[in-house]
C-alpha cells in the first residue's frame, strides 16, 4: 500500500498563489504602499477604505490572496532551502516549519477578516 503523497495538494496551492500574486501583487504594492501614502492618487480615507474592503466578496478575495500567497511562498522557499543550502536531509523539518508558518498566518488572516467590519 503506497502512502498517498501530499505533494499535488501543496503544488496546487503554490501554483494558484503564484498566479494570483503575479496578477495582483505589483499593483497592490504600488497602489497601497506608494501611490496612496505619497498622495500620487486620490487616496480613500480610513472610513472609505473600510467600506471598500468590508464587502463580503472583497473579504473573501483578500483571504484567498493572503492564504494562497503564503502557501505559494512556503512551498517555494522550502525547495529553495533544499537546493540552495543543500538541506534535503532536513526536508521533513523544513516542510513542517514552512507550511506551519503559512497555516498560522492564514488563521490570523481569517480572524482579522472575520472581525473586520
Amino acid at each position: 500500500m503506497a502512502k498517498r503523497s501530499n505533494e499535488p495538494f501543496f503544488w496546487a496551492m503554490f501554483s494558484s498563489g503564484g498566479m494570483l500574486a503575479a496578477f495582483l501583487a505589483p499593483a497592490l504594492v504600488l497602489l497601497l504602499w506608494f501611490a496612496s501614502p505619497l498622495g500620487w492618487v486620490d487616496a480613500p480615507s480610513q472610513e472609505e477604505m473600510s467600506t471598500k474592503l468590508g464587502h463580503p466578496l472583497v473579504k473573501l478575495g483578500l483571504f484567498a490572496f493572503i492564504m494562497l500567497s503564503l502557501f505559494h511562498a512556503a512551498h517555494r522557499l522550502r525547495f529553495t532551502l533544499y537546493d540552495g543550502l543543500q538541506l534535503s536531509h532536513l526536508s521533513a523539518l523544513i516542510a513542517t516549519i514552512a507550511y506551519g508558518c503559512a497555516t498560522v498566518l492564514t488563521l490570523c488572516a481569517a480572524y482579522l477578516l472575520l472581525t473586520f467590519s
Partner: protein
Amino acid sequence: MSSSPDLQSSSSAAHEAANPSYRPYHPRWYRKPYPILWWLEKLAYKKFMLRELTSLAVAYAAVLLMVQISALSRGAAAYERFETVLRSPLALLFHTIVLLLLLFHSITWLNLAPKALVVRLGRRRIPNRAVLAGHYFGWLAATVLLFFFLVGS
C-alpha cells in the same frame, strides 16, 4: 581483530564482528560534491535563485496587507500611523526592492505560462505567443481593475 575463533563458521554476524568495515552489498549513488554557493557560479543560476527568492516578497506583501487590514479596523488614528510609517524613507526604499522582486516574479511566472498551458482549439494548437499575450493582457486588466477599485472614494 581477526583473532576471533568463529571466523570459519561464516555466520554473517561473526563475519561483521571480525570485519567492522564490511557492509552487505548495496550500490551507492555517485554524487559529485558541489559547493554550497553553487548558484553564484553562473548568471542563469543567479537568476534562478533570485526568482525563487521572490517568494519572500510575496509572503511579505501578504503579511503587510494583514497589518494594513488590522490598522484599518483599529480606527482612523491607527490607520494614519500606518500611513505615516509607509511614508518613511526606509519603508519606501524597502518597498522599492519588494516591488522590483514582485515584478520579477510576475514576469518570470507569466513567461512560463505557455509551457504549462497547452491550449487546443479543435485540432489546432493555440500558439505560445497568443497564450503569453493573453496572460499579459490579464495582468494589465487586473492592475487597471485594482486601480479603479482602490483609488477614490
